[in-house]
């Protein structure tokens, strides 16, 4: 479907890719999209062509031969053992690169927080547990350009002084794991990973060692949370740990650890290669650079698109995504993975794809998974599905999350079956309020935020699913007649509403 957008690319399915479905939707437009749909820009648009996903549609792009042929590992070769690590950290800091995993924390700043002089080894943990529904960008890097990530890991480890990096992939990335594992092995065979990499350790130069361990998870959303991931790497249940201490002080095995997303680490290579000015020519002042967005839902051309930050969301949906399928009307957009609060079409019009714009609209850029919901979607069923997901994925450590997600699912389930009770909308809002900010990790917030967004903008959809008020009144009368106790309770307002009164009360 998207072949016409990338004339330079063969657009062929990757040989050996274990997908029987269409693989062509991974197209990244080769030329900047026309700015027809965009409002007036403050500065002229700098032409952009994909950086991270440039080669993903070429056959054998995952092999080391392909990577070396396009100048791969040259950046690492020219810096490892040559440049001062502090220079690299400053370079990444100056570039303004922000974490691509969801929180958008400045990467250079995070690296500079790494505790030094502790006498313990420092670790790098790369987060490839891409489990936010609606996000599938890391899959393309891992399956089709793993060496890009490996080079980023080499440079990052050198910059932060780490000798051991862990790359944690989710269990469902079967092909991604195989390819990344093969990539690490191939790099090891070429002396790019292992002892004295890139020929260091000779001519009086200190040797640089690096071990890369690829870990495969086994299907737990919570392992995408940084401390949960560390728990999993340590060989336990993926239980998040309380912060502080932050991983940069006490992380993996109690040692200082830097945790970064796959996309962030992959971008590091290009930033170090091309420099700060190159990276800053795109994006906004506070969100410089480019990012991979994952488009799904009711658009004509879903897939991954790498674009400069700060482009209008309308452009992403209408130009890159080709607009909505079958002339449908947009009802809502989930902008940053399932946990991001929903946007209405009016908000989408004024929204640009950068961290600040989405934060000002009460949502978040998150991991960049944009899902378009059309008017056919039943919003109440959609939120029920979402709540079921979070209930299933709650790790169970903290009561507000373990119980709260369950309650949200149960109440949403009532709405899903058109059996909402009077007062359920308020109940949902109350549960959300009591979940947020009261748990070790942010899964409770991630569950409460979409619910709050849906309640804010689609309250009418919920109210329409409350059982007919007349029916409720009838029930109330009936019960009051047979149960004086229930009558007293409902009259004083102290008791549960009429429909909540179970059979035991109606005796």
């Amino acid at each position, binding site marked *: 479907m998207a072949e016409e957008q990338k004339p330079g690319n063969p657009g062929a399915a990757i040989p050996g890719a*274990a*997908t*029987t*479905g*269409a*693989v062509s*939707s991974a197209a990244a437009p080769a030329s900047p999209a026309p700015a027809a749909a965009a409002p007036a820009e403050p500065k002229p648009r700098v032409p952009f062509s994909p950086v991270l996903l440039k080669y993903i549609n070429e056959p054998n792009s995952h092999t080391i031969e392909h990577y070396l042929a396009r100048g791969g590992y040259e950046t690492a070769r020219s810096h490892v053992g040559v440049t001062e690590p502090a220079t690299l950290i400053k370079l990444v800091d100056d570039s303004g690169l922000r974490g691509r995993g969801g929180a958008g924390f400045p990467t250079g700043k995070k690296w500079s927080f790494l505790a030094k002089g502790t006498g313990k080894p420092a670790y790098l943990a790369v987060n490839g547990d*891409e*489990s*936010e*529904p*609606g*996000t*599938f960008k890391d*899959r393309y890097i891992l399956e089709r350009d793993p060496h890009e990530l490996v080079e980023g890991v080499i440079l990052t480890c050198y910059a932060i002084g780490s000798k051991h990096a862990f790359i944690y992939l*989710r*269990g*469902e*990335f*079967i*092909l991604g794991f195989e390819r990344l594992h093969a990539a690490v092995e191939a790099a090891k065979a070429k002396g790019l990973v292992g002892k004295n990499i890139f020929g260091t350790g000779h001519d009086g130069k200190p040797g640089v060692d690096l*071990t890369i*361990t690829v*870990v*495969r*998870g*086994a*299907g*737990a*959303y919570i392992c995408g949370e940084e401390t949960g991931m560390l728990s*999993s*790497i*340590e*060989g*336990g*249940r*993926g239980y998040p740990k309380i912060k502080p201490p932050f991983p940069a002080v006490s992380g993996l*095995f109690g040692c200082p650890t830097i945790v970064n997303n796959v996309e962030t680490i992959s971008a590091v290579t290009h930033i170090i290669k091309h420099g700060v000015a190159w990276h800053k020519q795109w994006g906004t002042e506070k969100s410089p650079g480019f990012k991979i967005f*994952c*488009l*799904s*839902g*009711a658009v004509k051309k*879903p*897939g*991954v698109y790498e674009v400069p930050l700060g482009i209008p969301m309308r452009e992403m949906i209408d130009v890159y995504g080709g607009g909505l399928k079958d002339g449908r009307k947009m009802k809502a957009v989930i902008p940053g993975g*399932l946990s991001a609060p929903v946007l209405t079409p009016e908000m989408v019009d004024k929204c640009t794809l950068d961290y600040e714009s989405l934060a000002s609209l009460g949502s978040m850029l998150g991991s960049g*998974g944009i*899902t378009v*919901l059309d008017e*056919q*979607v039943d919003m109440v069923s*959609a939120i029920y*599905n*979402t709540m079921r*997901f979070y209930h*299933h*994925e709650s*790790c169970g450590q903290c009561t507000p999350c373990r119980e709260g997600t369950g309650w949200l699912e149960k109440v949403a389930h009532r709405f899903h079956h058109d059996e909402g009770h009077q007062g359920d909308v308020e109940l949902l809002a109350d549960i959300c309020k009591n979940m947020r900010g009261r748990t070790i990790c942010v899964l409770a917030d991630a569950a409460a935020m979409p619910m709050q967004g849906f309640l804010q903008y689609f309250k009418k959809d919920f109210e329409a699913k409350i059982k007919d008020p007349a029916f409720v009144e009838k029930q109330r009368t009936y019960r009051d007649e047979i149960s004086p106790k229930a009558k007293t309770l409902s009259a004083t307002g102290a008791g549960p509403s009429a429909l909540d009164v179970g059979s035991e009360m109606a005796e």
Partner: protein
Amino acid sequence: MSPSNMQSTNNAVRANWRKEFSPEGMKKFHEYADEYPNKRSALMMVLRLAEEEFGSITDEAMQIVADLCNVGVSHVQGMVTFYTHFKRPFHGKHRFMVCATLMCALENNTDAALKQVEAKLGIKTGEITADGLFSCEKVECLADCDKPPVVQCDKEHFTSMKGPQLDAYLDQLLKSEGKTAADYQGKPGIKMDQRVPTLPSHFNFPGESQVGARHFENKDAYSPEGQGELTTKIPGALATPLTVPVADGVNGANGALGSKHNAGKSHGSNQNGAGHG
């Protein structure tokens, strides 16, 4: 734990359990273990190894993994039950996983795919065919949201799995097992039971005497090697006076679990409490 479950994991069965992986598996294990600062942290990968060795993570596999990684079996079981992607004995040989999260569920994609699988295999979602070959379940996001519905089966990942494509794959899978769809029509499936027995309560930890009786309710299930069925009659070696007092209110099973080395003795005490008291 029902007695029938106990039967499958009693000590006589356990005596025949393997003590380690195959030579190739052990080689892989050492490769993994060498990469980590301690053996415990290799658990995720070693469990994957166990999955390959045994086809699914069985009790036997968990015991081996626990021994190899220097952790308790309870820790291994805790991990196996926490992570949903590990294949367990109650899953079918071919485990169909259909993504049911929002992006796939839009436009009825998930339901359509599930219906197709259900029609072909004659089972409901969450069930396994009576011959144990196929099972079908709903799972959460498989991270390929642009091409719904996403299906995983047998280490393979499929996108846009609907209509003829899904049918063709199902047929191919059935053929590889020498079956046809007709074989499964009208035969109800079995519900996949998450509560598969994993740790019998008479479980012995490594290095512990096999004689230590840990469970007192299902005596039939307990038969220590060389001693025959355990009845109320206490074997001579165990019929010594109790040296470690058992706290009041602690029943026999708990008392035995609490005092590791005196498990057998405390058992004796409970059975013949009056005599020793």
